[in-house]
């Protein structure tokens, strides 16, 4: 495919020419509350690069990326010099949209504005006052490029998460940016969909010549597409070697005591009492829709950590909710002996937050469940929330929100914990802290059912795996048996695995 003209009004830099897309000198950013996130940062990204930015939560990745699009620059003091494609940002440019910079953020759900795909693709062009012919051409062009034609007329609500994120990207590309900035774009996507998205990103970089800058805390999956990488640490940018970001070769070993004791442990599990089960359960959401679960069976033993895996739409969340008893199956039997003592962690912890501060959130069920001040403070300390007790839950980072939600649930002392994608969108450290808490809860003899895409999490923590496919339980076995012969579902020796195996969390 021929590269399309990047922007009719601006000339595309030729690739042979050494030309920088981003050039920052002594860049500092100070929030009004006195938090300094960027500190005399020097950074240069050459034209046509595909650069990864890694860094811990709160290291200022989002702030840095937002500064590249003046319309999104947060309120605060920006000092030093910053130029994007030779356009030097001054105080006057603050708040003014720069059409040469595209920006895609994490959540596809809240990024989409219109009710249909075609309108979403045209939305940005309408804002720029583009004339009819140009608009039609550009919409057709991006729809074709991203393979959107088949669902061009669909309503946004009918799309899957991956399709939504592709629409976000396509609607940005329709504006013909020369620099595309993405902030954790794949955090909400499952591994297969993530690959598709990254592939699309790769194509806009290599085929259309758009410079790409991606902030991520999961660099292992992106490193093959990238041309360079940097780490943002203490407000400064440090260049990284791409090879350092690749996943390791070490086998990932289970952390469960039951499996470490060899076959004896597994045998003990099989003898354990069945506490939760579903037998030939079928579920559908409306009369006209197809079955989400179709004669699905599962048996969860007491004291086990049972993982549900499978692609998007395989019915993992539906099965969890059916086991919890909040979805009534069309047919089949559900048995849950722990129904009165269960807790459910939803995919989006916001569904669980009722109060205006972290401390209120942690004490919300204190009266009903009778836990003490020391107990909830212990959780706050374990998750590093003790300095943020008066903060609104929404102002916490994604990882801390998930940790707060888990703490809130574990304080109720449940005997059955149902988790929906607990590590989704979290950086390695946050995921490790969370997984460590889940591990110690399970090791105490409690039962956990977890729906997840994270194979490393499954290998490390689970002692039973059920693969859901096409609404049915395709197979159930131990992770060791399951991962012994898979080509795609594979645990990865990533930063999360190393943190967990190294016992970093235990030391903390």
């Amino acid at each position, binding site marked *: 495919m021929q590269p399309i003209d990047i922007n009719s009004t601006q000339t595309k830099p030729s690739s042979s020419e050494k030309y920088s897309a981003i050039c920052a000198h002594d860049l500092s950013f100070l929030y009004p509350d006195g938090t300094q996130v960027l500190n005399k940062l020097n950074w240069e990204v050459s034209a046509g690069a595909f650069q990864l930015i890694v860094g811990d939560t709160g290291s200022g990745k989002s702030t840095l990326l937002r500064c590249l699009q003046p319309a999104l620059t947060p309120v605060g003091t920006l000092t030093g010099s910053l130029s994007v494609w030779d356009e030097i940002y001054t105080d006057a440019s603050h708040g003014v949209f720069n059409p040469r910079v595209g920006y895609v953020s994490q959540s596809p759900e*809240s990024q989409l504005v219109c009710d249909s795909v075609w309108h979403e693709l045209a939305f940005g062009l309408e804002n*720029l006052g583009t004339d009819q012919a140009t*608009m039609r051409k550009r919409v057709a062009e991006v729809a074709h490029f991203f393979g959107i034609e088949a669902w061009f007329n669909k309503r946004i609500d009918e799309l899957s998460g991956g399709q939504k994120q592709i629409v976000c990207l396509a609607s940005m590309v329709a504006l013909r940016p020369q620099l595309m900035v993405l902030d954790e774009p794949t955090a909400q996507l499952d591994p297969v969909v993530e690959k598709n998205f990254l592939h699309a990103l790769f194509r806009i970089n290599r085929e259309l010549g758009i410079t790409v800058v991606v902030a991520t805390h999961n660099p292992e999956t992106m490193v093959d597409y990238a041309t360079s990488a940097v780490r943002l640490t203490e407000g400064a940018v440090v260049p990284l070697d791409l090879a350092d970001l690749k996943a390791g070769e070490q086998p990932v070993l289970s952390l469960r005591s039951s499996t470490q004791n060899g076959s004896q442990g597994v045998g003990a599990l099989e003898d354990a009492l069945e506490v939760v089960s579903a037998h030939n359960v079928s579920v559908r959401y409306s009369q006209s829709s197809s079955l989400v679960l179709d004669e699905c069976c599962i048996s969860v033993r007491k004291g086990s950590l049972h993982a549900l895996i499978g692609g998007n739409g395989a019915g993992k969340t539906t099965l969890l909710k059916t086991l919890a008893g909040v979805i009534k199956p069309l047919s089949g039997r559900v048995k849950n002996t722990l129904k009165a003592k*269960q*807790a459910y962690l*939803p995919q989006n912890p916001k569904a669980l937050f*009722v109060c205006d501060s972290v401390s209120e959130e942690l004490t919300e069920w204190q009266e*009903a469940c009778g836990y003490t001040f020391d107990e909830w403070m212990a959780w706050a300390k374990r998750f590093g929330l003790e300095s943020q007790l008066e903060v609104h839950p929404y102002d916490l980072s994604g990882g801390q929100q998930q940790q707060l939600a888990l703490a809130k649930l574990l304080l*109720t002392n449940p005997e059955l914990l149902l988790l929906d994608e607990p590590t989704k969108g979290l950086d390695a450290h946050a995921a490790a802290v969370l997984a460590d808490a889940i591990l110690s809860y399970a090791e105490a003899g409690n039962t956990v059912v977890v729906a997840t895409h994270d194979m490393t999490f499954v290998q490390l923590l689970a002692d039973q795996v059920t693969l859901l496919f096409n609404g049915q339980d395709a197979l159930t076995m131990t992770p060791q048996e399951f991962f012994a012969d898979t080509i795609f579902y594979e645990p990865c020796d990533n930063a999360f695995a190393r943190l967990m195996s190294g016992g970093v969390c235990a030391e903390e």
Partner: protein
Amino acid sequence: MRFLEHLHPLVLVVYMAGVLVLSMLSLEPISIALSLCGACSFGVLTRGWRPMLQFVRWQLVCVGVIAVANFLLSSTGSTELFRIGMRAFYLESLLFGLCMGALLMAVMVWFWDFASLLTSEKVETVFGNRAPTLAIMISMIGRLIPQFVRQGHEIDEVHQACSAASAQRSQPLQAQFRHLSVLAGWTLEDSLETAYAMKARGWGYAPVRTTYKRFVFGRTDALCLGVVVALLGLSGVGALLNVSSFHFYPVMNVSPSMWHVWSAVLFFAPSFVVIKERCACNR
């Protein structure tokens, strides 16, 4: 149906508005009967017998209620049917009630017919150029409402699933209010992100917003619009003449005229288009 679906929304809007106004203005049995038959035949052709009957069922009850009410309350006319005490009941007042009911039903059925044809985005196309902000608002609302419902369900389910925190079931009403406040907080938080996403795509950048037009007003559309306007004009003149010469009381004078032919053509035009298309497909 394909032809009507691909017609420029302006033609559909003009037709629909014209037919509704015409039906409401011509309170005269023949015109009402034509309008009702046209609406029902189009409904049956596009949606099938069963949904049509299901929709009309309650309308018929409504027609009956209006007819009986008028019959009982208005004691005017010349053809006396029966008398209870001093009060006489006339055929004319029964027929007047029936006509009113039928008119209401015709209007409802036309709305129902066009609901599937005139989607929100087609309405947007017609009004989009006049009020681009309104058009984008309609589109955003169309997206937000299903999202609210979904998130509301999610909150309810999550809190229901956390049975270990047993306190919440005791006061369901209070719990509902809490859930509503969770939904409000969540939505507001999301809307901030949506606002950023809008800014990231240049919201407010150009002084004048344009609107992406999915439908081009072509020659066929112009021709159809011409035909519709002409038929509306002829039927309108006819309706004025017919209604001015027609009266229910004291004696009803139903007299078919040449003008009714134009109304018939107008009201049955959509059905005719669909039938013609089906024949072409079957051949």
